[in-house]
């Protein structure tokens, strides 16, 4: 008994010592972010206690494109629609449901948060992201914001209570999943797993219109298969478990919960792999939307909401959008928040968009002029439009300035698919400004740089700002024209955005 008493007293002193050390650690290190892996502590401290709507996301929130005139993040666009409500964000690149849960759990109870918008990234459910090498660092940082005394959190870090795998171990885990995880595909689908599918593409390649193997497209197609060919297992996928924890936490804290399902580059996936991959992506998207809607979460489905030209990374799979893409996503989220804040909504993202699009599959067209449809080449579907010396001008987009007040922040986005049967094709893309019927501005861009070789489809993209000359014109015309050579045009799209 005497021995026990002696031990108990020493243990009590030890506890007291730990309490004192905790105070010291908090003051000297933790609160000043002076220790390692305190990045999340700092991020969390920046969340204002008076904030009402919290946006939680990864790099999709903060990534902008060089030519964006408005470089606001997605959450800032959403916030613009609710000027009277205080918004804030927690943005950490490469993060995922597990990271979001760590952040949300660590939010102090006295914060005034009413609504939490959480990024739901389809790709984050795949095995590559789950076993990413970035995970160790995220977990280390997440340990430091656990709801325990800071010294305990630091001890967890020192005791390495996080996952850490070597490159070889990670590769083995990913390869194992690619080999064994089932795909939601019909029985007669020729590729039984990701490994086989990937290998098949790498061997056979993605062909261009001339039937040759396109190395860039082949690599990209492999990325797409590895990125999106999976079947979400709602019982075992760690992301599902973490999102479920977020749902539970939101219920406990009485938050309105919104899952922002991010847009993926469906255009590119379709172009590279067609319905085979799209069907798998659709399957998982439907599953997520259904799974979380049934759990009372407002799921904003942005999956098909951003077009190819708005994806910043054209050689990789990301959810990084240019300005218009971010605005489109933000607009949908902002709309979904109306049910929580019906009186505070202001339509600050109205674009006044004018859109022209023709894939030449039907006779109908918003463009002016002759379509000149033909069947010899087609980037998608069966038809494209031929521009040649006989039909010198493509269809023309006519924008009437008198109907809208374009400013220097207004933009014209042009995208099209172009193919030339011969080398060094010499066509032009033309912008023509007219006032009172007279040409006041005329500028052209050669398509030679775009069409690198013959018999292949290339993406033509151009962004034009409404400068002073264009603003002064009462009518702006946009079209392609042939110089000496024939070329083909498909998926011709012109969008005009106003601020």
């Amino acid at each position, binding site marked *: 008994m005497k*021995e*026990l008493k*002696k*031990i108990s007293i*020493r243990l009590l*002193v*030890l506890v007291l*010592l*730990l309490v004192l*050390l905790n105070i010291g*650690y908090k003051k000297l*290190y933790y609160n000043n972010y002076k*220790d*390692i892996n305190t990045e999340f502590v700092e991020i969390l401290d920046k969340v204002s206690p008076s904030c009402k709507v919290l946006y939680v996301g990864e790099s999709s929130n903060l990534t902008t494109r060089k030519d964006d005139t408005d470089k606001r993040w997605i959450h800032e666009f959403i916030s613009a629609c609710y000027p009277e409500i205080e918004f804030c964000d927690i943005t950490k690149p490469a993060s995922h449901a597990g990271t979001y849960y760590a952040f949300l759990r660590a939010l102090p109870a006295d914060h005034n948060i009413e609504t939490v918008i959480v990024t739901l990234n389809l790709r984050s459910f795949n095995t590559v992201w789950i076993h990413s090498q970035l995970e160790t660092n995220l977990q*280390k940082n997440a340990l430091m914001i656990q709801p325990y005394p800071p*010294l305990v959190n*630091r*001890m*967890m*870090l*020192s*005791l*390495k*209570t996080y996952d*850490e795998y*070597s490159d070889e171990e990670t590769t083995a885990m990913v390869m194992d999943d690619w080999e064994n995880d089932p795909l939601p595909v019909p029985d007669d689908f020729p590729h039984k797993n990701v490994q086989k599918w990937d290998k098949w593409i790498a061997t056979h390649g993605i062909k261009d219109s001339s039937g040759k193997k396109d190395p860039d497209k082949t690599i990209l197609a492999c990325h797409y298969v590895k990125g999106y060919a999976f079947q979400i297992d709602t019982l075992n996928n760690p992301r599902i478990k973490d999102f479920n924890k977020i749902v539970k936490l939101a219920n406990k804290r009485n938050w309105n919960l919104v899952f922002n399902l991010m847009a993926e580059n469906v255009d590119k996936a379709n172009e590279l792999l067609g319905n085979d991959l799209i069907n798998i992506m659709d399957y998982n998207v439907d599953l997520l939307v259904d799974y979380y809607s049934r759990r009372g979460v407002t799921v904003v489905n942005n999956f098909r909401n951003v077009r190819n030209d708005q994806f910043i990374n054209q050689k990789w799979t990301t959810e990084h959008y240019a300005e218009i893409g971010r605005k489109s996503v933000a607009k949908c989220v902002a709309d979904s928040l109306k049910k929580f804040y019906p009186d505070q909504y202001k339509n600050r993202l109205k674009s006044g968009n004018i859109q022209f699009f023709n894939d030449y599959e039907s006779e109908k067209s918003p463009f002016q002029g002759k379509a000149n449809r033909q069947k010899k080449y087609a980037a998608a579907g069966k038809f494209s439009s031929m521009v040649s010396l006989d039909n010198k001008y493509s269809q023309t987009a006519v924008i009437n300035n008198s109907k809208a007040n374009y400013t220097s922040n207004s933009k014209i986005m042009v995208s099209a698919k172009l193919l030339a049967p011969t080398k060094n094709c010499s066509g032009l893309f033309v912008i023509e400004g007219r006032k009172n019927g007279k040409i006041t501005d005329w500028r052209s861009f050669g398509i030679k740089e775009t069409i690198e070789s013959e018999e292949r489809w290339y993406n033509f993209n151009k962004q034009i700002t409404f400068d002073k000359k264009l603003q002064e014109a009462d009518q702006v015309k946009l079209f392609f024209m042939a110089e000496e050579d024939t070329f083909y045009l498909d998926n011709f799209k012109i969008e005009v955005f106003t601020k």
Partner: protein
Amino acid sequence: MLFNSLEYVLFLPLVVFLYYLTPGKYRWMLLLAASYYFYMCWKVEYIILILASTAIDYYAGIRMSRISRKRKRRPYLILSLVVNLGLLFSFKYFNFFTDSLNLAFEQFNIMAELPELKVMLPVGISFYTFQTLSYTIEVYKGNQQADHHLGYFALYVSYFPQLVAGPIERYDRLAPQLRKTTKLRYKNISRGLRLVLYGLFIKMVIADNLAIYVDQIYATPEKYMSGDLLTGIFFYSFQIYADFHGYSTIAIGTALMMGVNLMNNFKTPYLSANVMEFWKRWHISLSTWFRDYVYIPLGGSRVKTKSRWWFNIMAVFLISGLWHGANWTFVFWGGIFGVVYLIEYLIRKLFRPSEVKKFSAGHLIRILVNFLIVTFAWIFFRSQSIDDAFGMIKRLGGQSPDQAESLDIKLYVWIFLGFFILSDVLLYNKRFDKMLDKYHIIMRWIIYAILIWAVIVYAGIAKNPFIYFQF
């Protein structure tokens, strides 16, 4: 389960608590269950190896105890040797053996591709097979009575504090202590905890922080200036010492909390004045094992010719090197010690240097020279191949890279390393837990506070399991 893991921080107090709650005669069950659980945390299937080793040696021991003539006991000793060394060979040396043979065949243009076993090395296999072998050898020699209690014998083989990285305990030291019913004593708990804390400090703060720089240096030596390479090489000397000494200290502390005294595995080895002394102070449980079960059976020093004795010395060091790992680098490392040992012997014989006073200038110079020799040998121990080791040595005096990277060593790493070296000097021939008894209680608690703070706030958090687990 690592000693420096959250699992162990929860596991240890729970086991100690239950240990003292359990009546004496049932404690072996608790400890055996805890030991098997501890081991299965790595890989559940590998418990079969321990069970097999236990069953064979238990059987061999019982059978040998019933036979009075030594010669007739021999088949059971052979059975134990074949099974234990067979397991060790299959899991640890098979691929090394086939790789070496393939390489040898290649030299003679023989195109034979011997197969490779794709198995993970069972953690601690070198330790528990040597421990259980010492039992059967002693029973065979008639120095030891066989254990008829399977439970206690199994516990001797698998006792968790020293199961995976030693100290390699002898049966006559450990088994009686496991049978004894220890009462809860403040002194045991207190001293045990002190050792655990000190062990965690030298593993997590010293070894793991140094490992960050050592790993950089050995991964890409071509990127660093010779000064940084030298720093990395010296850091490794302290890393491996702190790592293994830390493990042993935690093991001793853990056992002490349950009233079991494990043998000291390290006695400030870097304060040795020669290689012979170094091996009396470094990994003592292994060197004494090799002395008793390899060196002496080979004839030891009582052989007819000097050359035979030299052979015995070299054989022990080479085998000891191979014990550390299935790679020629370890054999080479053992060879260096063998050669230096014999050179030192010749110098003593030829020049008869006078004895020097402890910690006199002459003694300190010898300590320094010995430390440099040991550090040089560690280069081979740490490198992936002998070529890499020589490459590293060449770089020390070679050209500097055009755009050299810097190690950028944090100040606190130097401070703690200094603290560790100082504490090692202070602990010369003493043990940390006992030394603290001499200090005033306030001083003791200040030391606890510093160590706890260092362990929590300054632990190196790169991925570094205990180095000796791979052996």
